[in-house]
């Protein structure tokens, strides 16, 4: 039970908001793929440095990202989890279906060089780790209750025998 509670506490400690940002130059034929591991939902903040032109952002699994790499980085062969097209900035929470490895693909139709800033921040809690902690804590609690019942029964049966 204590172990389960410890795992829950560890996951809470591990869920502190962590963000990472990067800046890249993109143009029509040189899109960008970011790959990231995540166990909880993520907030994406994508902006253009000079706010000129538009871009597209596709949020996808890493297997889909793999496919886009082989198809010259276009979103044609894939089914993204979510897509945002012809936008000049993006501030969205991306809800992940399950903990895992995901990617975002940023493309633009602009022929000019664009400086793009990408910032990802983990939000919420790591549900899968917490469910593991709850399971271990539950098994521990059940064992504790069973041992108390067992002890009580043994004592009462010894008491009856003594009588």
């Amino acid at each position, binding site marked *: 039970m204590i172990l389960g509670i410890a795992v829950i506490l560890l996951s809470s400690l591990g869920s502190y908001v962590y963000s990472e940002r990067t800046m890249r130059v993109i143009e029509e034929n040189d899109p960008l793929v970011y*790959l990231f591991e995540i166990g909880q939902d993520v907030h994406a903040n994508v902006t253009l440095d000079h706010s000129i032109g538009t871009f597209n952002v596709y949020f996808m699994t*890493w297997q889909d990202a*793999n496919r886009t790499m082989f198809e010259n980085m276009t979103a044609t062969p894939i089914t993204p989890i979510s897509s945002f097209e012809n936008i000049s900035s993006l501030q969205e929470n991306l809800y992940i279906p399950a903990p895992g*490895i995901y990617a975002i693909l940023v493309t633009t139709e602009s022929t000019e060089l664009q400086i793009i800033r990408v910032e990802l921040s983990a939000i919420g809690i790591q549900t899968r780790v917490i469910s593991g902690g709850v399971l271990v804590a539950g098994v521990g609690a059940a064992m504790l209750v069973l041992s108390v019942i067992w002890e009580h029964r043994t004592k009462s049966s010894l008491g009856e025998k003594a009588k």
Partner: protein
Amino acid sequence: MKHKLAKLMAQFQIEIRMSYRFPVIEGLTALIFLYPIWIAISTWQDVNIRPDTLEYFVYAEFGFSGKHLATLMTGMLQWLPIIVIVLVSFTAAKSFEDGYIQTLLTYPVERVTVLLVKIICVIVIPAGLMTFTSLFAILFVIPQSPLLGDVSIMLSGVWISILLFATLSMLVAVITKKVSATAIFGLAFGIVTPLLLSNTAFPNFVRVALDPFGAAYRYITNHSTYLMLGTEMTPLFDLQIGFGISLMISLALLAFTLWIFTRSEIGG
């Protein structure tokens, strides 16, 4: 047969109650379970943004499997030899020193059974906890299911390493009958062997045989394109041969230890 089994179970109960009292098991569990899980949680929650190249993607499946298992193994690597040596020193060598082994020998069980139960506990308890930690992490912590082959190599490395450490330090405990000698020899072996074996002049299978967990770690990290340790790859065939040799060395040591124990004089 039933009677023998009951006696064996009774011997296990005595061993667990005497040598693994509170807080031994609890402390072990905290070290073996919580430390690697914490390493895994704190590593993979990071949002690692990487501008990836085609090369990374080609090896993605192997890379992710290796990366995640290696993270978990990093948490185990430093504790594995120390835990086994401490257990052997305080459950076997100490019972020679304080004379408790004499009490055990007065029970109606064979001499071999007394030592065998101690060895089994020293192997099964830490290896079982490490297996539980690995399975828990695979189910609940690491984001991508690792490859089955990698998991089996990691677990084989854990069990064979613990078997080798336990039998070797148990032999020292039986010969010297001293806690200090067992601990010093065990720690020296645990620290010096990997350092010596980092020399590539030794054939691969020898390096695997004497340090199975380290070899499994090297094999798995080399599966990951993200870790890029720059170490040479241990071929799978060498790993299997090395594991086999290590297993045979351990069994030979076990038989020799039991043989010595049955013939040694216990007490004054």
